[in-house]
């Protein structure tokens, strides 16, 4: 139980709170004292280049990896203490997908059963992401975009009020990207919380309300989209300015 409700700088009660989280893999520091929050009714973009620490942070948030130090809370509690977590949080993780030999519908079935989610939700989410026709096809035969949509379907199974999505538009075609963007916008407008990681600046700028930028494991900017992009032509320009990198520099 939360004893008091902290309010962020915008006067919103954060639903997701990451406080001073550090994560080391052996001697390598992947995440270094990261703190940020995400509030309901808003889409929060968690941006950074590949290897910046986005996925590691989200894995700590979801209890998949253990933080070396710090805390990550969802509605004031660690994810691992949530009752039937998929009814509260829908998550889609980069690098955690369905076993290729299993059929899409079977993948969703075991997930639904684990949280006592009614089986009718399986057909509903398949319909939502446009995979009804491919439900009985083995996941190994799915395109990258279809796998992403299956991941989103799994996240939506429990009708959660919080979505944590790691690179959700990877592999999607323009229509798919637009569909996701519209969907997430509508989802947040209904009072839900969306935390979305991406390395695609243009796409993210059209979806998010708030931005958290991470680079080399550290948060380098955190604020509303307008605050972050102020004085820059675009979010992409702001990103390169904040990270101090140049296009093509890392090639």
């Amino acid at each position, binding site marked *: 139980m939360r004893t008091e409700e902290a309010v962020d700088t915008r006067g919103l009660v954060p639903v997701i709170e990451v406080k001073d989280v550090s994560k080391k893999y052996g001697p390598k520091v992947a995440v270094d004292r990261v703190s940020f929050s995400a509030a309901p009714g808003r889409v929060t973009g968690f941006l950074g280049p590949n290897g910046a620490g986005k996925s590691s942070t989200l*894995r700590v948030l979801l209890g*998949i990896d253990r933080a070396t130090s710090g805390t990550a809370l969802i509605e004031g509690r660690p994810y691992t203490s*949530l009752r039937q977590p998929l009814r509260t949080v829908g998550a889609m993780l980069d690098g*955690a997908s*369905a*076993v290729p*030999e299993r059929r899409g519908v*079977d993948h969703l079935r075991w*997930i639904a059963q*684990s949280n006592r989610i009614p089986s009718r939700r399986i057909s509903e989410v398949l319909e939502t992401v446009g995979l009804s026709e491919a439900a009985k096809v083995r996941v190994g035969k799915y395109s990258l975009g279809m796998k992403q949509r299956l991941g989103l379907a799994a996240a939506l199974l429990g009708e959660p009020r919080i979505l944590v999505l790691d690179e959700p538009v990877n592999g999607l075609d323009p229509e798919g990207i637009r569909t996701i963007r519209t969907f997430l916008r509508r989802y947040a407008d209904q009072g839900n919380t969306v935390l979305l990681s991406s390395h695609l600046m243009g796409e993210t700028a059209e979806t998010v309300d708030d931005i958290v930028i991470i680079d080399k494991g550290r948060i380098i900017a955190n604020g509303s989209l307008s605050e972050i992009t102020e004085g820059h032509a675009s979010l992409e320009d702001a990103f390169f300015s904040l990270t101090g990198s140049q296009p093509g520099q890392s090639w």
Partner: protein
Amino acid sequence: MIGVLSIVRSELTKVLTLPSVWVITGVILALNVFFQYQTLGFNIDTVANVRPDGMSEVDGRAVHAETELRQTLGVSVFNPGLLFPILGAVLAGTEFRAGQLGLSLVAVPHRLRLVLGKLSAMTAYALVLGLVCIAMANAFMYIAVRNWNPGMLWSTDMLAAEAALLLFTVTFTLIGAGITLITRRTLTGIIATVILIMLTMAQVVAMVSPAVDAFLPLSAARNLLLQGRDAGAPLTGSAGHGAAVLAGWALVTSVVATLAVKRRDAR
């Protein structure tokens, strides 16, 4: 907390929707049929030679027919049963493919419950598959004994032998699964269990110390199931010792696997 039953049900769905599990199940059942077919002629001959005192002549020696047939049934299930650790390795190893363990933990973040649910589902599957193997063996045995003594199929001694076979199939599955959860790779789990089996088959440890050999899983299984029978190499312990060692291996590997899953990042 999510109910353990819903986790077990979910884990059973994982098991039953994996084609590789069906392939290994099919191989185990096919081998079982092969071994049953191979022993059918021997069983028919044994029954044909039964004397009024219940003794029969087998390979020039007098044996108690019912005991001989019961032991033959045990061996015919025991041999294909050596594949059960591979079944366990495949069941557990799936978690480490395509990042499924991460998804499993998102769905069931309480790691102890997740592992308990997984091990329970594996136990249930191995139990049912073991029962099917025993039922097949009984069907073949019935062909041999139906005109002599079909009641032997549900005698106390036969049921005890079948219970020992079920203990063997379940513990061997859990040993393969436990080692795979610890090593985090299906292939490594299979190799480790094959090495353990080979240590018994090659009699490496038995030559040095039969007492130590009795603590190997396959040696324990032989001690449990092959008592009173020409088992090729000499047995190294009693049936009770064999049962305890098998249960111990399954328990220890399951506990270590649970601790490993609890403490490690899910990668």
